[in-house]
């Protein structure tokens, strides 16, 4: 006996009709018979960083012998090469004999051998393009800027050509939510919320990030359990930050792109400019010395005068860069405790007293063997 079953995924049709169409009669010349198996589950997985995998389960009534099942997906963005079709039960006697691809069609045909007449549950998996995903976060920082409430949202927009009446959407970190999603529709869902997350506030001077030399205010979140996170790697996404104003409401205090943050790593978020901390740079010495032919060294002293006009002391991190071969000289401020991040980058932490009392940082270095 040779039965044919039609699976259709049309542009405006629902995923519920992926297997079968609404009409029992044959749709084209190749179809001899179509049965209409019920949809049992549709799962849309986002665990791959770029691809979306759709999995659906159907119970198909098979006759004894070889059965033919057609699957077509006109108007949708299914990756033909990614289609995987197999019985759910591991110990089934049902066997898929071959897959045939008719020319010029978004369709294929499976030949399935069954030892007897039976209902068998199958799982159909395929990659689907044009289902966009986006992560964003809302943070509400406490009035004292010590902790925050961190909400993680997942947004999907469906341009795939298909419509999901109801599906389980599974995020990269394994969160599942059941929703319907029309063609062209977007849905945004709260997937995680963490309260009491500890944060560190840093003032940073770094010309490669802020070329005018203004001081940036950064919040640093550590993606660890100790700090109130650490459950999942944090996806790349926009973080909008609000702060409790102490009067029963909040004010928006800035936003930044949160970079992908594995467990254990830091997420650094720039919220804005700290206008009450000013840094004035002066190059006090800039001499050439030790000239040998066309090779020379330089002797340079950079001076940073920092004024903190806030009412309380603040610590400023100065990230300074010198290109090439260079050595810091011992009369530099904080020579014993500086942090050289890499060959070009050095970090100073400067305690800045309150109310505008100036503090100076001397950075003395020699650039060697220049030509």
């Amino acid at each position, binding site marked *: 006996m040779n039965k044919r079953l039609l699976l259709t995924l049309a542009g405006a049709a629902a995923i519920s009709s992926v297997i079968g169409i609404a009409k029992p009669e044959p749709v084209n010349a190749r179809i001899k018979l179509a049965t209409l198996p019920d949809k049992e589950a549709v799962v849309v997985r986002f665990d791959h960083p770029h691809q979306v995998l759709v999995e659906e389960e159907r119970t198909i009534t098979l006759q004894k012998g070889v059965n033919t099942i057609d699957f077509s997906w006109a108007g949708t963005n299914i990756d033909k090469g990614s289609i995987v079709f197999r019985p759910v039960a591991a110990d089934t006697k049902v066997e898929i004999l071959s897959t045939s691809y008719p020319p010029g069609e978004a369709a294929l045909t499976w030949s399935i051998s069954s030892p007897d007449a039976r209902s068998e549950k199958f799982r159909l998996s395929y990659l689907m393009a044009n289902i966009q995903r986006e992560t964003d976060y809302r943070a509400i920082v406490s009035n004292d800027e010590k902790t925050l409430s961190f909400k993680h949202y997942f947004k999907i927009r469906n341009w795939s050509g298909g419509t999901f009446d109801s599906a389980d959407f599974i995020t990269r970190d394994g969160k599942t939510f059941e929703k319907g999603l029309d063609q062209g529709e977007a849905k945004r869902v709260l997937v995680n919320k963490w309260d009491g997350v500890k944060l560190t506030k840093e003032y940073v001077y770094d010309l490669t990030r802020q070329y005018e030399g203004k001081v940036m205010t950064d919040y640093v979140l550590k993606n660890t359990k100790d700090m109130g996170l650490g459950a999942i790697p944090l996806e790349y996404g926009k973080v909008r930050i609000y702060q409790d104003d102490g009067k029963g*409401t909040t004010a928006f205090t800035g*936003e930044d792109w949160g970079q992908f943050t594995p467990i254990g790593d830091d997420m650094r978020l720039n919220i804005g400019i700290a206008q009450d901390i000013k840094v004035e740079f002066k190059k006090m010495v800039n001499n050439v010395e030790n000239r040998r032919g066309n090779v020379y060294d330089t002797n340079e002293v950079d001076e940073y005068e920092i004024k903190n006009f806030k009412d309380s002391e603040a610590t400023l991190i100065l990230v300074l860069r010198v290109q090439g071969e260079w050595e810091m000289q011992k009369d530099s401020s904080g020579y014993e405790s500086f942090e050289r991040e890499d060959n070009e980058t050095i970090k100073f932490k400067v305690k800045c007293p309150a109310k505008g009392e100036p503090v100076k940082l001397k950075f003395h270095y020699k650039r060697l063997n220049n030509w």
Partner: protein
Amino acid sequence: MNRYDQYPATNNQFGAIPGQLGIGYWLLVIGCAAVALISSPLAAKEELVTLPERESVQLTIYNSEDLTLVRERRQLTFKEGDNRIQFSWANTLIDPTSVEFQPVGKDAQDALEVSDTSYPAESHQMLIWTVTCAKPAGYTVEISYFTSGISWSAEYTGLLSNDESSMDISSYVTIHNRSGEEYENAQVRLVVGVIHLVERIIDLAQPGQGGGRGMPQDKWRELEDMAEDETNEDPADGMARPKEIQKAGLSEYYIYTVEGKETVPNQWSKRLKSFTVAGVPMKTVYRLEPAKFGPHFTKVLEFVNDEDHKLGKEPLPDGIIRLYRDAGEGRLSYMGVLNSKYIPKGDEVKINVGPDAECTLQQKRTSFRKKDLSFRDGWLVGWTHVEEFELKVRNFRGRDVEVEIHRGMMGDWDFDSEDDWEKHDASTRKIHFTLKVNSERTLKLTVTTRNGTNTK
């Protein structure tokens, strides 16, 4: 009650009249999830439509970005189970990604949960919240969003005493509304500070959608009448008085809260007084300091934003300063207008008012020589310039003045002068002195510059 809620809900996107104001017309639609409202072309089903009153509105306006955070509170009635709430904002400059729904109060927060937010394909200016309600009742909810088109700026008026020894300073804040939406009786907060934005709100709001274009004349007249009717009444004596602006710090920002409620119609601006201080002591310094004040010898008015100068209660936001001098008999003499940067509490303020004919600087090079010429294969490869300069400063004013002159050099140089110069930085020398009334002083300096192989 929102003044536009009177318009009936129709099929053209929730009663919005094309080309007219935007979220003034928005409508909340509540119904059970079972009602397939969304898949239909948004036909407003009358039995599902409610028009809850806008109980309060708060505007938080930023001056560093084209951004305003709007919070509205509304009383809504929820049924048990899923409720679908639709929010639309045709003809406004709202950022769709910023729109948030938040229950207000513990009861509401316990009973309500936003299950999802849906952005239907058929409209870019609409969303639908599915809110699951555990305990049916009326609850207050807050809807917040970012809008473009509302801004504020600081302005200062400085009135200098006739001898320029002191200045009366008046500070104002001006709110400008070009958002396409009128916010009636809103609590207004102004944020001083530079926040970080990664995308412009106007771009997210789809430019060209808003701005209140095409507003009919009768609507203009209505808004004009309303603006004229507004007064700041004081019930105690019936006298109007200026509203106070409360200032408080938050993180790296200051929040100015305007007393009471304000209505700023679309396309209107409104100016409010922030503070006035009389008799701020001033210093006048004449400076030649190209790195900060440009290439000219210029008059700089200086004071400090601290208590000694009757200020220091708050930072001074960046803004326009208009300067006048007391011309006697209550008359003003206009000096100029310039932009001021943000001044923290305790920081110095230096206002560059430009060159002044009453105190001048004349520079000339009195000598130019080359020496120590060296050659290789008959070609010049090393040489040294020796230049002598004279700088003459003359004070025609009826008072002593302070003068500070910076001189920058390039390359491999030596600087020499009999005057008392100081090192400012590696390539700059400076001199600072007081010049007596109706006197002059000539500074002499020599700059030697080594070039080519003469360079050290």
